[in-house]
């Protein structure tokens, strides 16, 4: 049987026990989704809705309390346990993403070394990747000498080095300034095409999601589920100011307001 290269979530639910062991919190409720090979997916939802929890499940860090997650036909928990040699899923976080005691080069080859890749393979991959992410001149720098955008590039390069099929990003650009974020968007699209990866991006930034994704999944607040799925039919590069773009944006904003759990309180200044 041909192995299906896709991520499938069927009826995933997650209940988190509170610290007092008395009560529990239903975080995820009946999540169904399918992500195909080479897709660029964004997940948007109100903060605290369990977006990170969902991709923790897909990464195999967490077991759902009900339902099944399935990556390339395997349970992600098992996939994570014996991923030696070929890690399938890489995670990119917002901060604390690099090993501060290693140089850019050492950070990039960290995964390859732990997987016992051959010296020649490590060398050739490193020189290809470091060039493509534009860090050749910074090879011997340490993380504290890099800007936020550069750190993210190193993290992405490290994910590319072990050739994992899926890159799961958890609000990676939130801490960056506008210009850097813009250039990281272009960079990410370039990497996505060049290396033919499947990318799942969690974000707060609606523009970012419309700008980059093939599809956007919208989540409600907890117990959260996927309330809408939106395919973005716009050719890339996309124009942030055009009418179509704004129509998508409007739909997403309306959705977020509808499913936000905290009632919108209007601020009235006291005289």
């Amino acid at each position, binding site marked *: 049987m041909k192995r299906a290269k896709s991520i499938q979530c069927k009826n995933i639910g997650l209940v988190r026990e509170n610290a007092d062991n008395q009560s529990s919190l239903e975080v995820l409720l009946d999540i169904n989704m399918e992500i195909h090979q080479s897709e660029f997916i964004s997940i948007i939802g109100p903060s605290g809705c369990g977006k990170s929890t969902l991709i923790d499940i897909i990464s195999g*860090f967490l077991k759902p309390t009900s339902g099944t997650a399935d990556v390339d036909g395997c349970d992600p928990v098992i996939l994570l346990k014996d991923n030696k040699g070929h890690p399938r899923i890489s995670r990119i976080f917002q901060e*604390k993403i690099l*090993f*501060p005691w290693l140089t850019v080069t050492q950070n990039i080859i*960290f995964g390859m070394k*732990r997987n016992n890749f051959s010296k020649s393979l490590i060398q050739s991959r490193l020189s290809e990747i470091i060039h493509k992410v534009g860090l050749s001149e910074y090879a011997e720098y340490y993380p504290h000498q890099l800007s936020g955008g550069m750190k993210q590039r190193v993290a992405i390069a490290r994910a590319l080095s072990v050739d994992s099929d899926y890159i799961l990003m958890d609000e990676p650009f939130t801490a960056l300034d506008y210009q850097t974020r813009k250039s990281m968007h272009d960079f990410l699209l370039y990497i996505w095409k060049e290396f033919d990866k499947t990318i799942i991006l969690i974000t707060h930034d609606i523009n970012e999601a419309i700008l980059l994704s093939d599809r956007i999944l919208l989540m409600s607040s907890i117990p959260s589920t996927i309330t809408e799925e939106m395919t973005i039919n716009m050719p890339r590069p996309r124009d942030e100011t055009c009418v179509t773009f704004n129509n998508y944006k409007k739909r997403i904003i309306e959705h977020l307001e509808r499913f936000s759990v905290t009632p919108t309180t209007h601020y009235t200044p006291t005289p």
Partner: protein
Amino acid sequence: MFFGIKYDRVISFLSGLFSIALLVFIWEYTAYLDFDYTKILPPPTQFLSSLVDHDFRIGIGSQSATLLDSIISSTLRVTIGLLIAFIASVVVGVLISSSIWIKRFIMPIVEVFAPIAPIAWIPLALILFGIGDQAAVFIVFMGVFFILTITAVKQIETVPKNLINIARSLGCSQSQIWLYVITPYVLPGVFTMLRINVIAAWMAVLAAEMTGLRDGLGAIIMNGRNLFNHDLILLGMLSIGIMGFLFNMLLKYVQDRFLWWDSIN
């Protein structure tokens, strides 16, 4: 800042040199004027020249040792004790942290031993090892090992989950995570704690040399006291001051050069 950083450092250095020189000058000058206190506190020209007169040897007959020998033996004792304690505390810290149950059973023991100052281990060390290098190394080790172990365990608790999860998804096994992520992460914090405790360890060795051991910088002072030789007392004190200062500089260099990363990046 006005002169630039390099200039600033030169000026700081020269100022320090000047104030030390001034202190020595006043000391020498009052000795020249025959002030009473200089009988007890002979000036540098006197106690240093008495050292030269004795071919840099201190002590009587076969038990005498050169000043250099004393400095080396004191420094080696402290260094070896600290080195063993540093490595052992990281290893033990990792082992303790590997299981919540080991932690629950072992940590209270460590926490009872930690407040025992290095100096308090001297009598036991002399009983166990007699007069010798092992006793001094033992004192330094016991004096700092437990506090460093606690630091290692606390540092391990602060390793960001992100870093561990990244390592896992990059294909690291559990043991690789301990070796390549957690251990390097905690080293600078443990070393900082070592630097804080180094003075206590240093003093304990000197005290041990005064009470039991026959050589080392502490023994010079004790010799001076027994022989009513004020030159020796001051020579010992000066050597201790300079060596402590240099030792601290060395540790700072090691930290800046090899264990410089802080945990935030």
